[in-house]
């Protein structure tokens, strides 16, 4: 493992929390994910990159069943993803997801956005849920906006609220699908900073992003996807300095 920020308790533990085995997915005739194998350990941080249309979003959306896979197995936190809707809801409660376009609920205030899941899924009393919400809003440096509506916030602020909203569910894994690519450059940093803090606390994270600086400083592993396959995965150092495959080299030469 590469040496990370001095936190010793933010290193992978060795026990798998996500196991994806021989997984295939089709959109109609289109074979979007081909034989994906991936094991993610607790507290591991994985960055996925790859060209547009390579299936990065589809892969992480399979992990919380926003997309259904057709072959192979996905096991999250000991539960296999099948058509059993109860299991799916259980897994979704444990897996937080942050979207490119934030997807906050515009008819609810920021606090209400944050307490919705805890109150209705976790059955936590409203008062307690609100306290937790305020705690996480402070963590993402936005507590003073608690009573506003999402439409009154900037993109960067909305994305930080979205992260806090996921955290309020006390998830075991966080999935990020290009969390900064809809943001203006000056707002990217404020979101990445929050994600780095999260990393330091030992959150298990799978991040689809093109922010290579983030990958270098935070990831334990960087995966490169192309045409629905994981072409290669390595420590950031190896990945960037010594890519194994031609396609990876080509991709890196284009974005770096």
């Amino acid at each position, binding site marked *: 493992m590469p040496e990370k920020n001095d936190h010793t308790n933010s290193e992978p533990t060795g026990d798998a929390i996500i196991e994806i085995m021989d997984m295939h997915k089709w959109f109609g005739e289109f074979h979007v994910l081909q034989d994906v194998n991936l094991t993610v350990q607790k507290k591991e941080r994985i960055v996925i990159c790859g060209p547009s249309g390579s299936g990065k979003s589809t892969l992480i959306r399979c992990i919380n069943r926003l997309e259904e896979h057709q072959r192979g197995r996905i096991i999250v936190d000991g539960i296999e993803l099948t058509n059993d809707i109860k299991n799916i*809801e259980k897994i979704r409660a444990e897996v937080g*997801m942050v979207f490119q376009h934030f997807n906050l609920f515009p008819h609810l205030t920021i606090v209400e956005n944050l307490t919705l899941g805890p109150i209705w899924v976790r059955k936590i009393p409203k008062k307690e849920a609100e306290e937790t919400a305020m705690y996480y809003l402070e963590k993402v440096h*936005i507590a003073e906006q608690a009573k506003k509506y*999402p439409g009154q916030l900037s993109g960067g602020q909305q994305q930080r609220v979205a992260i806090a909203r996921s955290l309020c569910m006390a998830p075991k894994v966080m999935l990020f699908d290009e969390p900064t690519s809809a943001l203006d450059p000056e707002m990217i940093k*404020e979101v990445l900073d929050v994600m780095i803090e999260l990393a330091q606390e030992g959150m298990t994270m799978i991040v689809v992003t093109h922010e290579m600086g983030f990958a270098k400083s935070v990831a334990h592993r960087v995966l490169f996807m192309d045409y629905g396959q994981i072409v290669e995965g390595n420590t950031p150092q190896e990945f960037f300095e010594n890519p194994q495959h031609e396609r990876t080299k080509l991709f890196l030469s284009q974005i770096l």
Partner: protein
Amino acid sequence: MNAEIERQPEEEIKPPVASVGVIGWIRANLFSSWFNSILTLITLYVLWKTVPPFFRWAVIDSNWFSTAEVCRGSEGACWSIIPANIRFILFGFFPYESQWRPLVAMILLVALLFYSRDRKHWKKSLAYAWVIGLVVMGLLMKGGILGLASVETTQWGGLPLTLMLSVFGLTAAYPLGVILALGRQSKMPAVKTLCIIYIEMIRGVPLITLLFMSSVVFPLFLPEGMTVNVILRAQAAIIMFTAAYIAEVVRGGLQGMSKGQYEAAESMGLNYYQTMRLVILPQALKIVIPPTVSQLISALKDTSLVVIIALYDLLKTTQSVLSDPAWMAFSSEAYIFVALIYFLCCYFMSSYSRRLEKELDTGL
């Protein structure tokens, strides 16, 4: 975070004043081009030709509490037709000495509606108030208890009937329409097909036909000796009809929702029912407030069609008054009066919908 740097403006700059004075306003709005000037002049001429004569007829020369004979000798409007027949217009064939009962029921209904306007009052206690209110209204209308004389539903009529058909019709049709819209979007093929068939069948048939079917065809299917009250049947027809239209309006709102909202809700573990109730419907229903209210308003006006199955609603009682030879000549006055009542109801609905829209506006 550095995004929220406070910026203090050096000095307050006022927004520019849009127009200066009355003259400025007139020039800018009425005579801004030769075409607008001509339109303005034509409009003024038409107003000059119509408003003063109408005013003379309706106000200056009008009679308010005279007999029909006096009216016939006069040039002006005969508003006397209203006070002279008000009790029949409002209450129809409801027993004369008991007409305070529908009056109280109506006042109770309107009071409850007004109280419910404010969203701050939407609590459990309000639901209880409605339940109690409805029971009291029912008792007042039906009687047969607490020393109140029993009144057959065939004697119900006038404004209480119209209000009842509208208020219950609309409040029942709305949730039913929402359920139908959700059903039409359902992933379960059986539910979906049923909802589509229902909606398309109802929308393919005029309300008059439905009313006829409810009063003529439906009883044929009932077992021997069993009858369902004719008002109830009309009410059911109105609900079924309105619900189908509401369903299509709501479907439009549901389709306007982005996939991201469903995904955000689902990805935190909310189930279908919670996702719809807490995330999707509040937004979708808000988007479709204007077309929904249009539907409800037209449903309210359509209640006047129940005359064709021999129910004496507000419009029909008014027409009955006009069949009296003494008052026959004053149909304009009577119809203007009824129109005003309908207008008031519809106007309150649309102004309330505007207010709701404003209250629910969250800037996105």
